[in-house]
């Protein structure tokens, strides 16, 4: 069984992001970039499926600029067998990414696509769902446990009320939550080998996908600064403020 793992190159989680002075977006110049942490969990899960003998091949996919090759090399170092980059300089939105992945799925026929539930840059939480819809496949989002056997995936999901377990018939799309696994550290021999694993580059046009943005960003702004707190004299005053000022009760 072939498994696809789409991975996104994002601003590293340690970086304190800054909004560009003209408000058109986040300043990405000279900022450290890494693999989206949710996607790292997805790669780990796929590699574990391969180690367990369930998957036969793990293919890492990325969509974006040529720099995304670095992110794919990280996926290869964790244990993906090969990688494909759908390369474009166009700003990609979730629908375009889902279409690109769908085109690659149609070409290669994986039985399972595992990806992060969202990317930590835009927090859109859409690509997996859109992909499942485009493919007409079942989906299980926010997975905290995945068991694949006999053509089915049994997925435990984290939902508001607790845990929900779904059984999907493959092929299917699964998106990962934080507690699914703890990604391994890449080993030195695997980092060295990653360089020699195949990494193919395709263009959106070759896949017949129009990636032009459908949404327009009007303005990006920093969140409002937190106001200083105040001390209340007693519980009565606290309740009064919660009711009349904060209007939360």
């Amino acid at each position, binding site marked *: 069984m072939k498994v696809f793992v789409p991975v996104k190159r994002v601003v590293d989680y340690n970086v304190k992001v800054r909004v560009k002075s003209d408000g058109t977006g986040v300043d990405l110049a000279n900022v450290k970039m890494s693999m989206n942490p949710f996607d790292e969990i997805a790669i780990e899960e796929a590699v574990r499926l391969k180690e367990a003998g369930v998957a036969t091949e793990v293919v890492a996919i990325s969509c974006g600029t040529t720099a995304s090759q*670095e992110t794919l090399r*990280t996926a290869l*170092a964790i244990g993906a067998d090969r990688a494909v980059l759908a390369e474009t300089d166009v700003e990609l939105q979730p629908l375009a990414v889902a279409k690109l992945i769908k085109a690659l799925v149609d070409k290669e026929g994986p039985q399972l696509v595992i990806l992060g539930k969202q990317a930590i840059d835009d927090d859109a939480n859409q690509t997996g769902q859109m992909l499942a819809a485009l493919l007409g496949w079942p989906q299980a989002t926010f997975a905290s446990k995945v068991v694949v056997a006999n053509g089915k995936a049994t997925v435990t999901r984290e939902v508001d009320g607790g845990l929900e377990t779904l059984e999907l018939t493959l092929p299917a799309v699964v998106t990962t939550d934080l507690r699914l696994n703890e990604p391994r550290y890449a080993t030195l021999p695997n*980092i060295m080998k990653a*360089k020699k694993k195949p990494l193919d580059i395709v263009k959106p046009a070759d896949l017949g996908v129009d990636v032009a943005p459908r949404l327009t960003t009007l303005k990006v702004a920093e969140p409002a600064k937190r106001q200083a707190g105040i001390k209340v004299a007693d519980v009565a005053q606290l309740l009064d403020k919660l009711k009349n000022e904060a209007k939360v009760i």
Partner: protein
Amino acid sequence: MSNYAAPVKDMLFVMNELAGLDKVCALPGCEDVTPDLVESILDEAGKFASGVLAPLNKTGDEVGARWHDRQVTMPPGFKEAYAQYAEAGWNGFDCNRHFGGQGLPRLLSAAVREMWKSSNMAFSLCPLLTNGAIEALELSGSDVQKQMYLPNMISGKWTGTMNLTEPQAGSDLAAVRTRAEPRGDGTYRIFGQKIFITYGEHDMAENIVHLVLARLPDAPEGVKGISLFVVPKFLVNADGSLGERNDAYCVSIEHKLGIHASPTCVMAFGDQGGAIGTLVGRANEGLKYMFVMMNAARYAVGVEGLALAERAYQKALAYARERVQGRAIEGSPAPVAIVHHPDVRRMLMTMRSQTEAMRALAYAVAAAHDAAGRHPDPDERQRNQAFVDLMIPVVKGWLTETGNEIAYLGVQVHGGMGFIEETGAAQHMRDARITTIYEGTTGIQANDLIGRKLAREGGATLKAVIVMMRQTQAALAGESQWSRIAEALGAGIDALEKAATYIVAQYGADVRTVAVGAVPFLKLMGIVAGGWMMARSALAAGRHMASGSTDSFYPAKMASAEFFATNILPQAAGLARVVVGGGASALAIPEADL
């Protein structure tokens, strides 16, 4: 708790702009090392250092290694971390591919080891000693010994130690008394006591391979009668499986000022009939083999100074940004973070600029070491080796002395909180303290520098280095942005030249007076070499800015170089005066009247 983040960007800058990574990559055997590979190795090593090793640093300090019943229990988490470290293949980083290593260049391993040391110095000593033992066996061991020990040591399954010191034989190894008696079958029984044996016993690996200096029955007195033996904790059967427990036991461990998690062992060999060992290389040549290793170990300890400086700086900077205390000296409506105060800025820049200078010098020496070992042209090999030999005592001495100064400043930036152990700044200061002592004190390094490395060859190698320094000075000239750096570097080189000329001229005639100035000269040389590296950094940063880079890294590098030039380099002139004129007074009072 402080987090450690590997300074990958500065590491890459130093490698690319100062240490000649491209040239190292072009050396035979390094063809697979490409810039993108270097970056991913540093990124992944950085993740491991921050995620696995750094969180154990404080536990290691607080709990420490524990001795009971001739066994050592490591602090919680160390055994698991070591297993992860070995599993991930980091141990064989620059080891021979033939025995399972990755054969990567020393320039790269210098950076990766800096990360291990920054994140958890006590942990890093175990692989450091193993690597020293690997190197000794590889250079001098027999094929049987190599096959028996190297693959498992390189994979990290077994660790290694170096057993040199005895109670009466510290800096002077001629006094070694441990005996080796031939058993008649090619093996030996070893009897004696060794002290200060780092990781002589622990619970992280299934076997420990001790390299032991001892005397054969007919050995001549002094240094010419010392042989090297390999003595495993568990004897190794012909099929590679582990056999009997050898008669080599840890009888106690030391209670130390720092590096608490690193067990410093008293080792007893042969208390129950003799520890069985085999001879490494030829009889009576043990010290020669040890010296090869000692250079590597001295370099590595120098990097410890750098690594602790980096960690102390990161911690101090984070605290200075967050601690709000006092109004600005020029006036402010409200209290400000202490990073705003000029004196705190002075301390932080003293830490930062010297850390950067130390890294630049250390990596440049590592790159020269690669060229000395791998360059196809014998002249190039020889030229690079001479540079390495000259600089090893400077890397060891100056980096560790400065590392201590920086760890001290790290405590100072924290104010009263720095004196509280819970804060963690004090640990770096305590851990740093050993670095100027072990593998040869600063005094020993300085004597090596002025004697063997300078006077013996009439200062030839240093003169060649000074020519390169002058070239950098010339490259800075004429551009106003670099004028202060050029001026300070020029004065520093003048001071270095003056002091070196004095040492070469007077060494034979009045060695005692000259030797008083040995450590000041070592510091002088470190400061000028560091200033040279920072000047080269400024040139490189200027090139990037001129070609339109908007990365704030480059102006910051320029500022750091200028701080070094205007705040650190001026010490050079004073130190030169000390070297030339300070010796006699130190010796003036008769010993009895001291």
